[in-house]
């Protein structure tokens, strides 16, 4: 019995908790991608770097707050700095929309032109981030590190396996849940949110109903910027901040958006967790888990790991390919808001 409990705690510690927080980060990122796709109708390759920019802006504000001695311990100061990061990212997104995307929107250019334009934006944002903060790893987490320590858990339960929950993980899950609830409330219940959905659903009819497209676009970018800055900051707090890793998040985020059904906010969230759980379960080494469950004689020799963590991106890719082959519209029949 204790063996079973130990095995389950082991899984919770190394699979459930990390996948939940990683899934929340992916879901927020995929939500941003899906909003751009639904309303503005293109795959935004700059989204990863937009997240890096948001995290960077938050980080700069965090350092400034720290130097001024302001903090909200035990929570990280970065939380206090988030509004600044969101505002800076919103300015960046709206600025690029004005300078770049609006022109192609007016000409009704095909989506692939927007995609290439987003590559240009990606380069520029990437350059800005590296210029301001450099390409290296940065830590900006402060405050308490753990909600629950493995040692405390063991003492409390008497089990030999411990459960660790980091503040960054707990915070990620709580904030993501609150943010998603707020976003759904906004889209389903407010006049502006409904106008956004209408615009995504049928642009021409939305215009015929008097919905102001400029406003819809503006609101969309603001939401996208907020999601990106928050997702970027949470990811940076949880792992660490490195510009290139944000670019690499593009693939799992796109996979999450497509798997869920691109353009579908609910799909982006489902997709984020599907990708995160697959990645973590496939790359986890189950040796110890089986050691608890199986008789000693059957104890596995190898690591019992399906795939090395070096190939975690392959997991998103394979899921993406399977979805494209089997059900190209994704779990929630895509392309709407």
């Amino acid at each position: 019995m204790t063996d079973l409990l130990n095995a389950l705690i082991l899984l919770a510690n190394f699979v459930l908790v990390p996948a939940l927080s990683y899934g929340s980060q992916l879901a927020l990122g995929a939500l941003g991608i899906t909003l751009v796709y639904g309303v503005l109708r293109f795959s935004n390759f700059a989204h990863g770097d937009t997240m890096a920019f948001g995290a960077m802006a938050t980080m700069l504000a965090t350092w400034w707050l720290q130097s001024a001695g302001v903090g909200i311990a035990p929570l990280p100061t970065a939380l206090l700095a988030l509004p600044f990061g969101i505002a800076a990212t919103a300015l960046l997104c709206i600025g690029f929309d004005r300078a770049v995307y609006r022109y192609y929107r007016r000409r009704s250019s095909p989506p692939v032109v927007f995609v290439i334009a987003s590559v240009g934006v990606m380069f520029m944002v990437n350059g800005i981030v590296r210029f301001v903060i450099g390409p290296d790893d940065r830590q900006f987490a402060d405050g308490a590190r753990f909600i629950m320590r493995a040692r405390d858990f063991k003492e409390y339960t008497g089990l030999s396996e411990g459960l660790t929950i980091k503040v960054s993980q707990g915070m990620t899950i709580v904030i993501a849940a609150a943010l998603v609830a707020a976003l759904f409330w906004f889209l389903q219940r407010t006049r502006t949110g409904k106008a956004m959905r209408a615009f995504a659903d049928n642009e021409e009819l939305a215009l015929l109903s008097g919905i102001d497209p400029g406003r819809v676009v503006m609101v969309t970018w603001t939401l996208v910027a907020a999601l990106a800055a928050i997702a970027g900051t949470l990811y940076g707090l949880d792992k660490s901040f490195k510009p290139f890793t944000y670019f690499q998040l593009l693939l799992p985020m796109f996979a999450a958006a497509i798997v869920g059904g691109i353009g579908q906010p609910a799909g982006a969230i489902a997709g984020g967790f599907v990708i995160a759980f697959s990645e973590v379960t496939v790359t986890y080494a189950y040796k110890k888990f089986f050691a608890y469950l199986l008789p000693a004689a059957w104890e596995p020799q190898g690591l019992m790991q399906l795939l090395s963590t070096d190939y975690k991106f392959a997991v998103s890719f394979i899921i993406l390919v399977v979805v494209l082959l089997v059900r190209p519209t994704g779990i929630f029949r895509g392309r709407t808001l």
Partner: protein
Amino acid sequence: MSRAALAFSLMAALLALVGVMQSWSLALAILNLCLISAVMSLGVNIQWGYAGLFNAGVMGFAALGGLAAVLVSSAPVAGAWQAGGARLLVAAGIFAATIAAALALRRRMPAGGARFAAVAAALFIGCVIARYFYAPATAAIEALNPAKHGNLGGLGLPVLFAWAAGGAFAAGAAWLVGKVALGLRSDYLAIATLGIAEIIVAVLKNEDWLARGVKNVTGLSRPVPYEVNLQQADWFVRRVESFNASELAALPSAERAAALQQLVIDYSSLFVKLCYAGLFAAVLAALLALSATALNSPWGRMMRAIRDNEISAGAMGKNITARHLQVFILGSAVIGIGGAMLTTLDGQFTPGTYHPLRFTFLIWVMVIVGGSGSNLGAVLGGFLVWFVWVEAEPAGLWLIDNLTAPFGENALRAHLMDNAQHMRLFLMGLVLLLVMRFSPGGILPETAGGGRAKKAGGKAGESPAAAGTKTKMPPPDSAARA
């Protein structure tokens, strides 16, 4: 003088300027990478310009070309095949059988949960069995003299074969990706290629038995002479001597030998680079000629017809997805050739250096800046953008150095000097966006037939794949605030 001739003359002048101002060795080094960049951007242009396909995985195809260079040209590793070759082949066979079984199950069984479970189970079991052979095989290979080899080794063939093999490798990968992602929305191809590129590079970094992973394979054989050998070759020394006879004669005889030795060293390096340049230029010229021929053939006309109006071409019974697959494979093969050439030039294979900004998106900047749809444009873009990419770094440093120098040494200046190199990313993005917006046809826009500019309105801004105009509301934003 035609626009193209003018543009290429200016490009040559720029390179010559580097030769005079910095050094000829540097100018030739840049030229060689310009040529390789031109090959890769030609490949991307075939996909984008002929068919409007967005390939975001150029890096992966280039890396496969590099892998080909290793597998074809490096010396065989004694005992590697004996150690694990057989089991490796068995593993590959089982894996192939697994895929075949999964596909067969999918075809035979009625759709539903049972089929999904059966296919998943077949894949899982097959992979587990394949791994039973694969893991010890690779471990055995990697255990073989790991400091020096630890990999399968190559065929020991002349490296020029590797260029063709690089094309073939990339074509194979392109076939796989294209089968899955073509025929769906255009962005799905972009995302699928982005993914396959990351995976290819991850495999190359981690599968040490294949090409030593991040331990790199160095000392690949060359298609051109080695500097050391040239420096000891009589004919070469005599040529250098006669070439510089007057300068040498002007020197005091005591210094002559030392000066000649230095000259021989300099010239040997230049000579090697020139040989590479000649080879690369020959490949580029051949590819250009081939694609020009293809473009003007009935096949090329059909491709353009499809590109200009997919809907009507589809209505006329053209199998668009199959054509797109052809073009995608061809373009990827050209990229693979470029990748193999690059690895050959470097003389080593370093999976850690494949970076998507440099190997995928920079190539895209080349294509769009040069002129999408236009082969000469893509070549020019390859030259110009690579040149700017390389020279932007010293230029940016120089600029920041001079701008901040008056304020003395402080932290900000140090920071700016440290990070100045990253501004070239910003610059590339800016150039891309400016060209797309203000000169969507690029520097050398696509021409129909003999140099006659095609209808204005051009490419990147409009996309070659722009479908027929549909009647539409005046687009958003032009709307008056109601």
